[in-house]
């Protein structure tokens, strides 16, 4: 490896980056846009579920039940209706997600000490929200029911009975259960993967398309120098992106940071190197920018987004997909990020992941250098 040639390549690549301000700005703005979306606008947390109430009973008892829902922050009563048709309409037009129907014999059953069913209808299209909403609704009913039972006991037998066994729930790491807290750290991985793969995959393909690659190949420059030079140039861009993502995430979105900054930097750089090398590898395989980009999206961004555990937990995927996720470097990086941000852990727990990331970076770099053919055909 000739240092002088390497320097020349790196300098040229940096010049290319700087001379295309549009791409540069887009690259730097990307993490901001994603953070804005995921940190502010998008959330999986469920509350203010629009609900209809259909009270067929219209007794003090039924109204008391309905009040339980009114008082809960999870439900937003949009109105009282008088028939199933209205509920139908509401769900079909997505005006409401849930409907509580109190049957006409409700208070009768209740006062007679019998089972008093209450109907809950939910729009299952968005299964995640539906499941959670249903859980909340059932919980409201259950706790009200327990209270009623206890009152009945008091009326009959004297003491108010407390439930014999209570669940004491404590949530670790993310006690507010804010989805933002776990999405934002993972977002750093996804953003970096996206930018890294996009930019680096285009660079070699572009030289082929322009014809400058042929010129380069006729010179003494070695493939390793070419790859490393491009890598170093895009690395600086990647680091800038990473810093933006981290700083904005922590300071603007108040995502907790409980770990070690040096460890975070080290692992981020490792990941970035691997991601960039992969992009360059792709670039050396594809002769056109369009192809390089598509390959990049499919093999870098998509897996990073879906299979890294960033939003969708890997455990719940089919075994085959889970196996594939082991090949996705973003998976290990997301684990590291979550660990560092939310749990404050370090090498002891995450050592395995760090080793895997290092291995990946080295292997792909060597692969990319090998793949860079010295011949036109």
């Amino acid at each position: 490896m000739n240092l002088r040639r390497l320097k020349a390549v790196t300098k040229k690549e940096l010049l290319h980056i700087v001379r295309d301000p549009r791409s540069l700005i887009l690259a730097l703005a990307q993490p901001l846009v994603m953070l804005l979306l995921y940190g502010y606008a998008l959330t999986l947390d469920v509350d203010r579920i629009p609900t209809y109430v259909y009270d067929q009973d219209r007794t003090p008892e039924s109204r008391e039940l309905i009040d339980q829902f009114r008082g809960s922050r999870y439900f937003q009563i949009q109105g009282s209706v008088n028939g199933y048709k209205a509920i139908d309409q509401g769900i079909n037009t997505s005006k409401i997600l849930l409907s509580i129907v109190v049957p006409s014999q409700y208070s009768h059953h209740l006062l007679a000490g019998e089972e008093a069913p209450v109907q809950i209808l939910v729009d299952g299209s968005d299964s995640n929200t539906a499941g959670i909403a249903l859980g909340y609704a059932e919980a409201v009913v259950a706790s009200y029911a327990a209270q009623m039972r206890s009152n009945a006991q008091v009326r009959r037998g004297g003491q108010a009975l407390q439930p014999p066994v209570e669940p004491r729930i404590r949530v670790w790491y993310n006690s507010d259960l804010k989805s933002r807290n776990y999405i934002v750290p993972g977002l750093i991985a996804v953003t970096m993967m996206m930018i890294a793969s996009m930019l680096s995959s285009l660079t070699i393909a572009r030289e082929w398309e322009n014809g400058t690659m042929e010129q380069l190949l006729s010179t003494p420059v070695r493939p390793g120098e070419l790859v490393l030079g491009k890598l170093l140039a895009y690395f600086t861009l990647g680091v800038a992106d990473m810093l933006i993502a981290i700083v904005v995430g922590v300071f603007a979105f108040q995502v907790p940071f409980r770990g070690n900054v040096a460890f975070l930097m080290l692992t981020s750089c490792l990941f970035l190197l691997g991601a960039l090398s992969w992009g360059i590898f792709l670039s050396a395989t594809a002769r056109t920018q369009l192809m390089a980009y598509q390959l990049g999206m499919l093999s870098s961004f998509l897996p990073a987004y879906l299979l890294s555990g960033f939003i969708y937990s890997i455990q719940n995927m089919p075994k085959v997909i889970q196996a594939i996720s082991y090949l996705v470097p973003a998976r290990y990086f997301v684990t590291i990020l979550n660990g560092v941000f939310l749990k404050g852990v370090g090498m002891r727990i995450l050592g395995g992941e760090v080793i895997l990331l290092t291995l990946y970076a080295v292997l792909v770099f060597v692969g990319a250098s090998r793949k860079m053919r010295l011949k036109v055909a």
Partner: protein
Amino acid sequence: MPSAVEIRDLVKRFGSFVAVDHINLEVGRGEIFGFLGPNGAGKSTTIRMLCGLLQPTSGKATVGGLDIATQSEAIKQHIGYMSQKFSLYDDLTVEENIDFFSGIYGVPRERRSERKDYVLRMAGIEERRTSLTRLLSGGWKQRLALGCAILHEPPILFLDEPTSGVDPIARRTFWDLIYQLSAAGQTIFVSTHYMDEAEYCHRLALMYRGKIIALGTPAELKQSLASHHLLRLEVSDLVGSMKVLESLEGVSEVAVFGGGLHVTVADPSPAIPAIWAALKQAGIAVSVLEQIEPSMEDVFVAMIEEEERKAA
């Protein structure tokens, strides 16, 4: 003295298509060697093989004494190459392009700024050293590309169609540069499809459909057209004359050229009076009828047509 370039039975196949078909030639040191032929003849393919960009299918060649199949990396240290698209980086300035290639070719530190100034001067772009390459016109880009290829003073230079798409004045200037370089001792291997540029070379090879169909100095090649003598005519009726002359015995070829006709004949002595007579009989007035020296273009066109006749 060992030759700069030696090619023996070189072949390059792409699938079933034979791009370069058993060619043989030698280029001496300090020569300007022209490689001519129509598009698709195999010129670029040959040059790329010599520069180590393509792996030959069979045959042997050496550049500067080094084998192209096994020592291509070493070869790259000693050559300069200018590709057909004169690939410079559009979004870099003139200076930045020079600096880049300087670094890539490993120009020694002490010589760097001297070489840079030389190239800028040679290309005539000193005032434009900080301009973006994208903004240069064709002629300047071309000279800059040449300059970038010689920063490291390579003994052998390969230029692939360096004058394509460049205006005639720029072309002339470019060839002046090539002469300068050659005078200084560099060997220059140039390919072109402009037949008139053939006159500028010390020696030529004419390539057609992967084969070399002619090899020698421009004078030798013109001589070889012993059986082809060229007459120039100016007549009152071009089309009519063509009809008459095409079927005339002793006339091999009639072509429109400029405002008149170029007629190729086997033997001018009987042909000239015969033509006079035939045209007069057809009632066509002839203002000029003279024998001229064939140009390289004529030579090549004739040779190529000969090849086509053989193939048919």
